[in-house]
């Protein structure tokens, strides 16, 4: 660990006098940003596991409105690519919260497909719930029954130090569209309620999407956030009707979307008008099913009921029949809930709707129709007739040629996605071994748009989340090109600058005892070429362009080795300039 005397100075600290910029004539020629120490280890196997699956209708029951069963687009013939350290880092930037030197080596050793399988086999890190308990937040006196204490610490701890990085990344992708924000939960023990919800996403990240839907429909935090706790069946004498909130967003945001889709994600049209997925009546009918929900117990002395599945109070639950999406359920209770979720889950929209969003979260904002079609096919049928198998979907997304073809991504002007702000933080933290010896993880709430990131895990202000899959920044070349860029919804003149200022502090001195370990970087720092190449590889997947590399090296070399804390400050410059570079910010 770095001693206090070695903290990189901030401008307000001004530990270091300004040294005249002095170019180092001994600098070697600019590197191509390619790591040669790791040769060709794993190669052709990486593309082998892309399930093309059966037809989209395989293993499903067709439910109105019908969609034509598409013929899945066959996978293109895999091009044999040599897996390089740079390619491994790029893969890890898609599949984890950030690459590390160790994980790059691991992927190079096993190949990508085997690395994914190994991740599937890993046990989960400690749950948010158990961590909160282990820190005593569950005691009425020491804890904070009405508050959020411990929540951010647990979230950052897992995102940065979690031992199950693929699971962490997929769960964050799910949280981006199966949204709850902790401030919108009107329950006590909110840290536990929100922690339990994220635990569900982590639990089911490698499971089945249908099971995940069943779990979140019973989750206390969801019940509160989308207000179906306490929703009552229609009362003819008062005219009171069931709360429609969850019914609507379950279809609009979690499963179907508002427009009918082909399996490749294109919108189905009739006479030039998009076909809508459901009607006002469908929502009103489905809302009848989600009535009578309440917390499992009335005991508020402990947080336990925040993770127990909700139960249904028969006296306020609708037991009559409800007809929606052309199907009918009746009888009430959890049986009706499960029947209703089955009906939704079988709708042809679910595969392309969920698949495209997961691709956008992990790989690219603008996947080709064929790529969406291939992943949808894997969602519809994992090859064994199972619909909704997340492992098959994750493999299909990450092993697809469109995800793996680095040279095409680098050459294409429209490729990639803007790294979302919280991932930039975790990218840095994982790359440079951030730890919190006290387990305090004092990063906290990072939603401030003028002081921090404009985004924080589990802190969206509404069910529409921080990013929207169809968002295109109006009035830009992106919009003119007909492309989407979901993360630009939270990019603005103020937040872009605030991000740099915040990272300047974090990179420079961390927060509390949450700090990076730059030992390895400082060993390279006397040689600006080696330093920048290593930062480029781990943090930016080697995607800094040569001119950017040269500019960063020149900036590093402006700090003479004779200066106080020279290697540390040179390291800081290399890292912060990389984090600020548009080359890094858009992961191609």
């Amino acid at each position: 660990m770095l001693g206090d005397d070695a903290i990189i100075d901030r401008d307000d600290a001004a530990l270091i006098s300004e040294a005249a910029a002095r170019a180092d004539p001994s600098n070697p020629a600019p590197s191509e940003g390619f790591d040669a120490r790791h040769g060709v280890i794993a190669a052709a196997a990486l593309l082998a596991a892309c399930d093309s699956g059966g037809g989209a209708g395989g293993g499903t029951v067709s439910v109105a409105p019908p969609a034509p069963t598409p013929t899945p687009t066959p996978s293109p013939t895999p091009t044999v690519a040599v897996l390089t350290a740079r390619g491994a880092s790029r893969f890890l930037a898609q599949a984890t919260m950030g690459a590390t030197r160790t994980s790059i080596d691991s992927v190079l050793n096993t190949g990508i497909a085997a690395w994914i399988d190994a991740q599937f086999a890993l046990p989960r890190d400690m749950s948010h719930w158990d961590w909160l308990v282990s820190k005593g937040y569950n005691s009425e006196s020491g804890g904070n029954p009405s508050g959020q204490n411990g929540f951010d610490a647990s979230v950052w701890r897992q995102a940065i130090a979690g031992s199950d990085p693929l699971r962490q990344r997929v769960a964050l992708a799910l949280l981006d569209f199966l949204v709850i924000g902790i401030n919108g939960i009107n329950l006590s023990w909110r840290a536990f309620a929100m922690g339990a919800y994220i635990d569900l996403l982590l639990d089911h990240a490698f499971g089945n999407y249908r099971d995940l839907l069943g779990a979140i429909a019973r989750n206390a935090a969801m019940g509160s956030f989308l207000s179906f706790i306490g929703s009552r069946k229609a009362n003819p004498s008062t005219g009171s009707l069931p709360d429609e909130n969850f019914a609507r967003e379950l279809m609009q945001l979690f499963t179907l979307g508002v427009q009918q889709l082909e399996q490749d994600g294109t919108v189905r049209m009739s006479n030039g008008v998009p076909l809508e997925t459901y009607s006002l009546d469908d929502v009103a009918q489905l809302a009848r099913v989600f009535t009578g929900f309440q917390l499992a117990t009335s005991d508020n002395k402990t947080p336990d009921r925040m993770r127990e599945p909700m139960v249904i109070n028969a006296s306020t639950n609708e037991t009559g029949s409800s007809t929606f999406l052309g199907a009918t359920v009746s009888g009430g209770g959890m049986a009706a809930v499960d029947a209703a979720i089955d009906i939704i889950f079988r709708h042809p929209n679910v595969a392309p709707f969920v698949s495209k969003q997961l691709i956008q979260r992990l790989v690219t904002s603008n996947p080709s129709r064929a790529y969406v079609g291939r992943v949808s096919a894997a969602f519809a049928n994992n090859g064994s007739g199972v619909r909704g198998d997340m492992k098959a979907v994750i493999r299909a997304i990450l092993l697809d040629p469109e995800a793996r073809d680095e040279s095409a991504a680098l050459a294409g002007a429209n490729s990639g996605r803007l790294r979302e702000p919280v991932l930039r933080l975790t990218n840095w933290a994982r790359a440079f071994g951030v730890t919190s010896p006290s387990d305090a993880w004092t990063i906290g709430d990072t939603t401030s748009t003028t002081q921090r990131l404009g985004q924080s895990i589990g802190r969206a202000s509404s069910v529409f989340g921080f990013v929207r899959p169809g968002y295109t920044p109006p009035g830009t070349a992106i919009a003119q090109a007909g492309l989407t860029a979901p993360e630009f919804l939270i990019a603005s003149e103020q937040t872009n600058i605030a991000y740099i200022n915040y990272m300047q502090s974090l990179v420079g001195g961390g927060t509390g005892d949450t700090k990076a370990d730059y030992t390895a970087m400082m060993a390279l720092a006397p040689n600006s070429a080696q330093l920048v190449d290593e930062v480029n590889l781990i943090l930016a997947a080697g995607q800094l362009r040569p001119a950017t590399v040269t500019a960063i090296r020149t900036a590093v070399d402006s700090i003479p080795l004779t200066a106080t804390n020279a290697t540390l400050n040179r390291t800081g410059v290399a890292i912060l300039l990389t984090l600020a570079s548009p080359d890094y910010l858009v992961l191609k």
Partner: protein
Amino acid sequence: MNAPTILSDVSRRAFLQRSALFGMAGVAAPFVTSLGAIGEAAAATASDYKALVCIFLLGGNDHYNTLVPYDPTSHALYAKPRGSLALGRDALAATALVPSVDLGGRAYALAPAMAPLNPLFDAERLAVALNVGTLIQPTTRVQYQNRSVRLPPKLFSHNDQQSFFQASSPEGASSGWGGRIGDLFQSGNGSSTVTCINASGNAVFLSGRSAIQYNVGTGGPVSLLRGGSSLYGSATAAQTLRRMMTETNPNLLASEYATVNKRAMDTQAQLANALAGTPESTFPLFPSGNGLADQLRMVARMIAISGDLGTKRQVFFVSMGGFDLHDNLATTQPVLLGRLAAAMRAFHDTTVALGVADKVTTFTGSDFGRTLASNGNGVDHGWGSMHFVMGGAVKGKRFYGTPPAIGHNTPDDVGQGRLIPTMAVDQYASTLARWFGVSEGDLSTVLPNIGNYDKSTWSQGFV
């Protein structure tokens, strides 16, 4: 305009008194000097300057408990399906609105929490627009049921109806009507970047076909490296940082990100000095702990420096969230409406103090209205809603549009008291645009569907 001067005087006095109460006595002289300077700066271009301010209520505000049916017949029709959520007539007496033009026997009261706006209504500074909502063309109940007219797509969906209200197109829209108004005026501004200004998050409303929305933040532009000129001890590194952040890039997304960075840095440099001359402390009327008030204070500061920047026309967007009250309506909505009213009142009084009240017109918008029917402790997504227009140029103390029938199966109802709008957002917008100076010939550029409405209705007359 014809607004009574008494409000102006009262407000100015209150402004000064409260600034003293806020402990500013010690800096009274510089404060007054500063205020005078603001007034002069604004006055220099006063004959030219106009601003439109959109206050967007995110989540779909429940209009039934915001502008409450008050005459006994209407109130009874409202109260029964609302059940425990209904506001009683007694509680509404103090905020009942008495318009200068009778509404055919119908009457409304503001939610009690909105009492700070009653004096503005009485002083003809506040008007009410009735049953405003998203439409493509005039629509009757039969036409809705038969789908025999074009309807806004994805009705009742938050994100899409927010977008349709702001842009006449669902989510993914490429420009909004505030931005399209900005297109027409940005060349007349000293700096085109400060034509369309957002003091909240990104909103399609302010993006034009060429006009770009500028996000200003509530505390003014953030300064890179907090104004520092070196990075970890290196001035060279700081210079590299600025250059690298703004360079064009072969990747489209990266290039656009750099464009936002460049606009941020350029505009920060431009605004920082001007805003430093009008610090927050010289705007004491705004309540603290009120996010909307923070945004509107920033709008007021931008208006105050408009003379310095040579700005003639500006469109602003501010917003407030939390209105999607499927539950806890009775406890939560009054808190939100109280904040809304306090922020609006403070903003208006500040424009009076600045001497620009008749140059600034403020209006509300929202995703949609709500159902009349209760779901027990909240209400669900609706369509038409009630909105407010505020400012010195407003022909206030009046209702505009048609009071909708109240109840189920009325000619205005599509189910559970969801209202079919009788004033299209296009008509609401065209009225504002005409005041702002958009010519009749340009209206269809700003509002592509306005031609579907009779020309005599393009101005609803409220401003």
